[in-house]
């Protein structure tokens, strides 16, 4: 009897302690802003650029960002800048699981950056978001600077309520001053020159050129065998063979559309099934297959990860690569400014049509900002949103504090400071502020206006990397000069492409497509499994016969899974998007 009492008291005591602690931390919630603030300021103190005499009230917001991987308080110069504006951010990194859990639980963090319209719709339906129409007076920058986006969101993304619940982000025109975005086929220009810059008409003409280059440069200095095209499989994910991006986007087709098993020709607007026997998708696979037949396709491509492929690009082990964004690892200042410059530059074959990211007039498909209905800090959230729609604030938010890397001169023009150039020239391109902090241009916490959008007063894009003098000073080098000599004297690839009318922006409809319904999404993914698997196998097929039988097999299976349903849905949704787009683009 005694013992049982003991056990009971033990459990009761434990329960009490537990609930006491639970209650305690619950209570902390209200005061958490101050707690966070102190921890934040102590961290910011390390970097010691605290503006003196800041006595204003600072509100800490829990800010969930779907597309950010790292949580924690925002510190450093950005933390300081926000603090001057009475704000502090506690970032909550996004993940699919978290989003589902938060939506199911109903209590969203103060400020939300959603990454799918689907979750926005669910949050609206569950009454978890603040109706921003009731607070427009506190969003003057938003209403003044992005009226179309607001109008569009109200009309099309309000779950039928006609109210404004979210503000899209990254609104603005796209801007490609140098390259054709990420989509081009780049060759080791030094080797290409060595073999006499042979011209190519079609995509397939590139193969013998690559072969010649490989023969001229069979292995790198450290003995790695060379191949053409840096394919890898680790980003295939569940919807498409990502490697195909490399090819079809250089033929003027939209890369995000073949996840619906259709080719979308940006020039004609035509949509065709990838299973047609004359599809561009099939052509891309055939291209890979021929590369492999010629011994140009890396045998490790199918098993290597992104990191492994990138390491090879960084050491120049591919004579040709897709995804222009990767070439920076090899196009280092030492390489591109050597007496005999070495590096990757786009090869402009006759058939090349660049598909580039389009204008985000009504916001990108990613990241819509909304305020949690249970938040007690609505005003501060509104203030953050409003701040990131303010052109002048955006100059700082994107480029660091004024007077550091950029400044405004007496004529009222923005310019990159001496310090910027010092950093650029001496620091390997790393931009370091005077407190020692590194600035990552282009890395943002989801601002309403994109950094490619032109500033109305200064008439340059907001991001410092795109200012004309900066481009002139950072992008021109001996390698681009060599390229320029071989390409009719155009300074940068984009200029040649634009002059010849070969740049196609993704139409606005791209961002206006409906959310894929669950049924379609499931179908899509089941088919994608077959498509991804067979596509890779086709690239490595032994002979034509195997190639064709894999193709037939893929077609049969996809048809058995009702692929047409997906294609029809996508076509329909695209056409609707085009209709809607007409209202918002003049």
């Amino acid at each position: 009897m005694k013992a049982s009492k003991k056990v009971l008291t033990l459990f009761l005591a434990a329960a009490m302690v537990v609930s006491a602690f639970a209650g305690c931390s619950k209570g902390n919630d209200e005061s958490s802003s101050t707690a966070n603030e102190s921890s934040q300021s102590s961290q910011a103190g390390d970097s010691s650029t605290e503006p003196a005499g800041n006595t204003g009230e600072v509100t800490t917001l829990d800010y969930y960002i779907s597309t950010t991987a790292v949580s924690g308080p925002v510190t450093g110069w950005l933390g300081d800048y926000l603090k001057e504006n009475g704000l502090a951010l506690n970032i909550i990194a996004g993940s699919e699981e978290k989003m589902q859990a938060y939506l199911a639980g109903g209590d969203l963090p103060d400020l939300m950056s959603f990454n799918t319209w689907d979750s926005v719709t669910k949050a609206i339906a569950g009454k978890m978001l603040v109706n921003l129409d009731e607070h427009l007076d506190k969003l003057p920058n938003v209403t003044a600077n992005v009226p179309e986006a607001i109008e569009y969101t109200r009309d099309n993304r309000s779950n039928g309520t006609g109210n404004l619940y979210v503000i899209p982000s990254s609104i603005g025109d796209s801007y490609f001053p140098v390259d054709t975005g990420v989509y081009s086929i780049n060759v080791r220009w030094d080797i290409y020159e060595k073999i006499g810059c042979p011209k190519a008409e079609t995509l397939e003409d590139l193969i013998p050129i690559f072969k010649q280059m490989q023969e001229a440069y069979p292995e790198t200095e450290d003995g790695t065998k060379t191949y053409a095209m840096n394919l890898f499989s680790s980003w295939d994910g569940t919807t498409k063979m990502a490697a195909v991006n490399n090819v079809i986007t250089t033929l003027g087709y939209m890369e995000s559309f073949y996840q619906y098993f259709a080719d979308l020709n940006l020039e004609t607007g035509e949509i065709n099934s990838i299973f047609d026997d004359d599809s561009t998708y099939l052509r891309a696979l055939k291209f890979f297959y021929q590369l492999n037949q010629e011994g140009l396709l890396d045998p490790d491509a199918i098993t290597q990860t992104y990191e492994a492929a990138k390491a090879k690009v960084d050491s120049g082990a591919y004579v040709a690569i897709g995804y222009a964004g990767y070439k920076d690892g090899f196009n280092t200042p030492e390489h591109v400014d050597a007496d005999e410059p070495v590096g990757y530059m786009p090869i402009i074959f006759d058939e090349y049509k660049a598909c580039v990211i389009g204008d985000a007039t009504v916001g990108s498909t990613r990241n819509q900002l909304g305020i949690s209905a249970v938040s007690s800090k609505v005003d501060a959230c509104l203030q953050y949103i409003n701040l990131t729609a303010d052109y002048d604030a955006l100059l700082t938010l994107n480029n660091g504090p004024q007077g550091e890397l950029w400044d405004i001169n007496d004529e009222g023009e923005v310019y990159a400071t001496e310090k910027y150039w010092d950093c650029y020239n001496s620091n390997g391109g790393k931009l370091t502020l005077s407190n020692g902090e590194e600035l990552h241009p282009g890395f943002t916490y989801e601002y309403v206006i994109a950094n490619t959008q032109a500033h109305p007063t200064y008439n340059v894009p907001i991001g410092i990397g795109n200012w004309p003098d900066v481009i002139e000073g950072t992008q021109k080098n001996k390698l681009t000069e060599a390229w320029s000599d071989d390409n009719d004297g155009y300074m940068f690839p984009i200029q040649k492409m634009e002059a010849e009318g070969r740049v196609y922006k993704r139409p606005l409809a791209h961002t206006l497509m409906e959310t894929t319904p669950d049924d379609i999404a499931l179908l899509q993914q089941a088919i994608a499994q077959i498509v991804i698997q067979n596509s890779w196998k086709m690239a490595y097929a032994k002979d034509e016969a195997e190639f064709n039988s894999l193709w037939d097999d893929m077609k049969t299976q996809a048809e058995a899974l009702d692929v047409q349903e997906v294609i029809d849905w996508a076509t329909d949704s695209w056409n609707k998007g085009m209709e809607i787009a007409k209202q918002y683009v003049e």
Partner: protein
Amino acid sequence: MEESVKAKSLHKKSKREGYMIFLYALPTIIFVFIFSYLPLRGWIYSIYNYQPGLPISECEFVGMKYFTKLFSNPVMRMNLFNSLRNTFAMVGLGILTSPLPMIFAIFLSEMRSKGFKKFVQTVTTMPHFISWIIMYSLVFSMLNVNNGFVNTLLVQMGVIEEPVNFLASQKHVWITMKGYELWKELGWSAIVYLAAIAGIDQELYEAAMVDGANRLQRIWHITVPGMIETFFVLLIMSLGNFLNTGMEQYYVFQNAMNKDYIQVLDLYVYNIGIGNGQISYATAIGIMKSLVAVIMFGFVNWLSKTVRGYSMF
């Protein structure tokens, strides 16, 4: 007369004691109920088209749609069949290799040098802590075509003429997967057997030595019986769980070439996108898997009862 009264009172006493012990156990049972049974309310999502955020009353009722979906189409059925085949193959290999940790523990404990014993035991558990993603990059660095040392070595020795992409081979996928798993987990799974051996009364060994039993006899008559119970308990538990092979290992090693053999059920379910936000569908599959697991567990338990004479659970 007197005896039956006594027996009755004894019975009564033991019954009361039974209730007492139950009262002692009750808090733990309540706890299990709260954390494992209460959430099962969520199983209702499987018959609705549940959208997080909406109350269930506002969600569309779909009945058994998600339960039948996996079998709805010949291609889906074939894929499901394929992944089940792979799952069974992995489970079969799992059963075949299940005595290995026990054997590992026995032979390790027979080792004389205490220092070496501890060393082996420590280092064989180390791979357990390395994630599959890193294991893959390690394996890739050994086996890749361009500069993996295995290929270089084999070519130099003249075993193969051209380097081979072993990771993209569809031969022996099951066995290699099991091999990687043993590499990573064998030492770790031996721990529980080492504990069982440590629990055997040392006096038994001393007595056996006196009786002149040799090493094999000691192992067979003392060590093995001392841990066989643990072995069967673990085996039965794992058989009940046979559909949950996990997917991380298979996920990192999968590619277009080996997919037909590597895609176990868990990976298949992930690959066709049920993990991503399809809560109702995922719940339906979870329910089906749970049912299979509970039935399988009951069956194996019954089997062990018939074979070994008493039930484990």
